[in-house]
């Protein structure tokens, strides 16, 4: 079905071109970053726009410098641990909660679900000092576990709502049939609903992953030594020397490599990502 606003398309070609131009503006900094990371150092010095857009040669030196740097690899490993940990815990917690909200109606459930979403309007800096004190008291300072718990809390409300609407889209008859055959509620959830929800769970998991991979503020406060720093803190404190052109080439390589998992997720999810990101805001 085409839902186009035909009248607005009277002069439709210039509009489409404008759209393309603006989207070029949106993408070109990322393009510069990726190309910059494989450009010769002279490209950064010469300030020739044509050359910045399309370098005469591609070199892998800076990429290699970063990719084989044990410090960078440590940051990447930490990020991977935190992001997968967060993703796993978030999915477990949110799956249970979402099933509860989707199927097991009880007083207050709906209110709690909506209330959870309000966490997205809370300024993170508001929580910093008390959370930092808790982390220190629990002996979790400079420990990746503190980051996993914090990130899980912030990803759960979103996961909860995505999964809830996914579960609601599955017909109730499936579980009821299983329960008539003697399965318990939980049995029906694990054996009937979960296998059917794999696509929804994967998409939701990737959202949790992105959130944890990108987080900056709590990582800045909770981690102090480079053996536990994640990429955002590690790279932005280690690769920032902006004195020479080589520094810039290396910085662009570190940025590009840090964003690779995000690029991959974007490619995997495509439309699903867009739908998830705009979820709720339109339907309300």
């Amino acid at each position, binding site marked *: 079905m085409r839902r186009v*606003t035909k*009248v607005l398309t009277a002069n439709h070609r210039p*509009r489409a071109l404008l759209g393309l131009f603006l989207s070029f503006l949106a993408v070109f900094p990322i393009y510069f970053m990726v190309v910059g990371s494989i450009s010769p150092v002279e490209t950064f010095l010469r300030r020739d726009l044509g050359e910045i857009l399309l370098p005469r040669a591609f070199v892998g030196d800076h990429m290699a410098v970063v990719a084989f740097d044990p410090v960078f690899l440590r940051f990447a490993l930490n990020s991977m641990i935190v992001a997968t940990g967060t993703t796993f815990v978030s999915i477990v917690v949110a799956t249970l909660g979402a099933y509860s909200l989707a199927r097991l109606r009880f007083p207050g459930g709906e209110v709690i679900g909506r209330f959870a979403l309000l966490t997205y309007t809370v300024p993170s800096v508001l929580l910093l000092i008390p959370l930092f004190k808790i982390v220190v008291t629990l002996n979790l300072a400079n420990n990746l576990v503190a980051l996993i718990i914090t990130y899980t809390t912030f990803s759960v409300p979103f996961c909860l709502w995505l999964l809830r609407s996914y579960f609601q889209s599955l017909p109730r008859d499936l579980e009821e049939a299983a329960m008539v055959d003697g399965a318990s509620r939980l049995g029906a959830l694990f054996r009937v609903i979960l296998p059917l929800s794999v696509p929804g769970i994967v998409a939701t998991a990737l959202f949790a992953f992105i959130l944890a991979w990108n987080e900056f503020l709590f990582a800045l406060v909770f981690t102090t030594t480079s053996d536990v720093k994640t990429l955002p803190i590690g790279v932005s404190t280690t690769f920032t020397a902006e004195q020479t052109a080589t520094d*810039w080439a290396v910085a662009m390589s570190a940025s590009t490599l840090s964003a690779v998992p995000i690029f991959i997720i974007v490619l995997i999810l495509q*439309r699903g990502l867009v739908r998830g990101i705009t979820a709720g805001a339109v339907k309300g």
Partner: protein
Amino acid sequence: MRWGIRGLSLRNSERLLGIGLLFPTVALIAAVVLYPMISTMWLAFFDESLLRPNDPAEFVGLGNFVRLVTDGEFWKVVKNSVVLTAGAVAGEVIIGMIIALAVNASYRGRGLFRTLNILPWVIPSFVTAFVWVWLLHPQFGPINAFLQLLHIIDEPIAWLSEGVTAMVSLIAVYTWKGLPWTFLVLLAGLQTIPEDWYEAAKVDGASAWQMFWHITVPALRYVLVIVLVLRTIWTFNSFDMVYLLTGGGPARATLTLPMQVFTAGFREYNVGMSSAIAAVMVVLVVLLSLIMLRVGWVEEEAQG
């Protein structure tokens, strides 16, 4: 009998299970969001320093707030936050609306287009900051090179080192990063407007501009309010790119409230002051969202 003892106990056990399954979510939010939130609001009334961990916190009533409102520097920080938020949200909504209207028309390769455009929103903020510090760099940055090529400027501009240009740059970067979300939500909203409304208006001889004001905007009212409220709150609360791009400088010209909360707490170790600024932030956020929701609501009633 359906409502027999068995049925009732089944219902009760389902309720219990429901509460049990939601418990981990509630516990996490209570421990990581709710408790710290209340704690910060409480600490705002105390004089406490992380440098004196053994001294008991001293109750000072509204002392911290009095110091804030009488401090001229604090109002500049509030102003910076408002300018940055208003600039970035206005930029996102205006540009986002233009792109959404342009591509809503009919678009081939929409999938790829949308996929690529989402990138600024999903890449890590430190990557965004790195790229833009390079793009804006006076010596190596392509933006200066481009502007010089077009003879718009003669000398390279040190964008992030002058008060006004630093704020303008921050607004531009925030706009760039927030644009994909704003654009996609507006586009999704546009696509729910039935085509016949425009056709009917066209039959009545309406101009494109009239149709925009009398069909598109009212139909998008709800989506617009949501976009404005959420983007305002998120930008207002945002810490990382201010920290990474300017650090609040030069000379506090881009110091925003979240940055100030962080600095007071983790650079000056002044828990009370940091908490008081955070409390002011929360009040401003709540007020802002109430005003916007109210405006959207009143208009909705006026429109019938």
